[in-house]
């Protein structure tokens, strides 16, 4: 494999991972505020269906994205109401919604299966930046506006989390909601807001599939991607940069799988579509706290500390727990 081939594989991986970036960052934002939106699988799929149908009927892809975002907000509203206001199990509500929305997308999207529809128009390489060796062709000659938007989202979310006062509050309501409340922050209102914005991003992720990266609509069009997004958020330790890295890693696995498909004849091709999902979960399993601590204990103390800091992550302390302010 020469370097141009490698570059092509990596550039493809970045494009493949773009819808996942939106879904993963939506979930990251939600979970940072202390709420788990387990409905991702269904939200992405329903977003893909509604996005396609709206774009098809209005002949405007951007209205499709708006429709998908609204669907994401509505599903997230149910999660927020059940989890925040009613204090029910976020897992139960999210899981039911994941199944419900998947089935709903199949039922209502039935007349639109396998028909041609509008797609996002190609964009130009970003001037100046595209001239950078290696990075230019890799990141800035993608020719897709959503890919560029995803870069902005990653950087913007990182900046928001770690460099703004509002971001500090966001992290506080996920870690120490009681303390944030005492300091005068409206924990309930903010959790609602971030859950809804996160839901909008997941809906947009769906439309990014059906209107761009996997254009069209078919039954279970985005099957598996919502679950993998949830796994990537944990893998990325709720940090936008690391989450994005996780999504790109998944993209690389997928492109490698499609390359391997043509070169390894003995293994049936269908296995390669499942392989990235399995590998990703395995990585998650191996890097999660329990095994990692045991592995690290064999290392010398100095190396242990640096490695632990880079590898270990812990979820927002109040993740999944309802906040009772009265």
């Amino acid at each position: 494999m020469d370097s141009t081939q490698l570059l092509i594989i990596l550039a493809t991986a970045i494009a493949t991972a773009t819808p996942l970036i939106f879904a993963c960052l939506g979930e990251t934002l939600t979970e940072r505020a202390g709420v788990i939106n387990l409905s991702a699988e269904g939200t992405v799929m329903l977003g893909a269906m509604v996005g396609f149908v709206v774009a098809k009927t209005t002949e405007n892809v951007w209205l499709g994205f708006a429709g998908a975002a609204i669907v994401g907000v509505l599903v997230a509203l149910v999660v927020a109401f059940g989890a925040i206001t009613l204090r029910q199990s976020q897992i139960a509500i999210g899981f039911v919604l994941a199944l419900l929305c998947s089935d709903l997308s199949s039922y209502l999207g039935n007349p639109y299966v396998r028909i041609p529809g509008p797609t996002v128009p190609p964009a130009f390489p970003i001037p100046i930046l595209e001239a950078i060796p290696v990075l230019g062709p890799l990141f800035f000659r993608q020719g897709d506006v959503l890919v560029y938007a995803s870069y902005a989202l990653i950087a913007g979310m990182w900046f928001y989390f770690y460099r703004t006062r509002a971001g500090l509050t966001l992290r506080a309501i996920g870690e120490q909601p009681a303390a944030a409340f005492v300091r005068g922050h409206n924990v309930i209102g903010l959790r609602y807001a971030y859950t809804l914005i996160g839901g909008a991003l997941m809906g947009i992720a769906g439309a990014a599939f059906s209107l761009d990266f996997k254009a069209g609509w078919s039954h279970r069009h985005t099957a598996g991607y919502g679950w993998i997004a949830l796994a990537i958020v944990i893998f990325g330790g709720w940090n936008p940069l690391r989450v994005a890295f996780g999504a790109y890693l998944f993209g690389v696995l997928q492109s490698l799988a499609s390359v391997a498909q043509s070169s390894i004849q003995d293994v049936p091709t269908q296995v390669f579509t499942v392989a990235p999902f399995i590998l990703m979960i395995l990585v998650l399993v191996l890097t999660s706290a329990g095994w990692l601590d045991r592995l690290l204990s064999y290392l010398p103390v100095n190396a242990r500390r640096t490695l632990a800091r880079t590898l270990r992550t812990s979820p927002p302390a109040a993740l999944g727990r309802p906040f009772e302010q009265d």
Partner: protein
Amino acid sequence: MNSTVPSQTVPPALERLPPLAYRGGALIIALLLIGLIVVISGASPFEVIGRMFSGAVSTPDQIGRVVATLSPLLLCAAGLVYTFNAGLYNLGVEGQVTFGAIATTFALRLLYPEEATASILPPPLTIALGILVGALGGMLWGLLAGVLHVYGRISEIFAGLGLNFAATGMAIYLIFGPWKRPGVASLSGTQPFDESLWLGTFGQTEATPVGLGLALLALAVTIVVMRNTHFGLRLRAVGKNPYAAHVLGVPARRQLLSAFLVCGVFAGLAGAIQVVGVFHRLIPSISSNLGFLGLLVVMLVNFDPLWVLPVAIFFSALNVGGLQLPLSLGLESSLSGVIQGLLVLFALIGRGLAQRYAG
């Protein structure tokens, strides 16, 4: 939203409603939403209900199909009663069904090789061994999720989802690779087993007495265990508060692992029944999503095994009735999933409203 005066978010009149009003109200909203969705798809709700009902109970064949769906669903739901009561969301149940089916297929292929003309042992014994190996396979997959959760401190949700993908991947690999049909491999599955290895059915239907018997037995055992035994009590104690249970001398780890184990055995049995009773071969979607449907059933009955049977019958009938929709009305059969999902969602919301606001 005014965070400083939380008690005023509810109008006083609403506060005096009995809990049943919230649950009933939620159910009515769910039914209205189902009707609305049917209308959006351009059909009449009453016609759809009629077709689904007649599509589930008109002919012996259809009733047989309901029973054939019910058996694995009951097995999964019975198993999930243990994990839910232990406070676990065992989303890995799908993979446990699939791996059970793989194990059963493996055993049957071993006892009745492709080139042979008869099975090595008498057919009934072969089938029994196949079912037993299926249960062991499900148990193994369940324990794997349990070990990852208990010793690896990994959320059982993601351990389970990962093992689901792994089991499906393995099934696809086997179907397209080592176990492919002579000639061309396809998504339709492995070569069907010889008819001597098919489970006997009620008349000409798809329903098998053995499958139904196993399912009802599993449910009966579960009801007794959860209501009348020390094991069930300890399981609930761990589910309610693992730390308190530990302090009072209940070994939480062993309880959690046994919940995974029992659920795996039951799910594996469901997979075995799917192979020897329904499909007579291994297919990629061998679980037919019945594991996930089992999760919905147990959530709807709030983890109480007494109510599992009626809900499971209703959900099975919906699944089978839904199959009529594409033929008679040109609608997609996934409407049954939409109905099930909305009923469970609004049951959860109704329960939450009642807990929060009822007087």
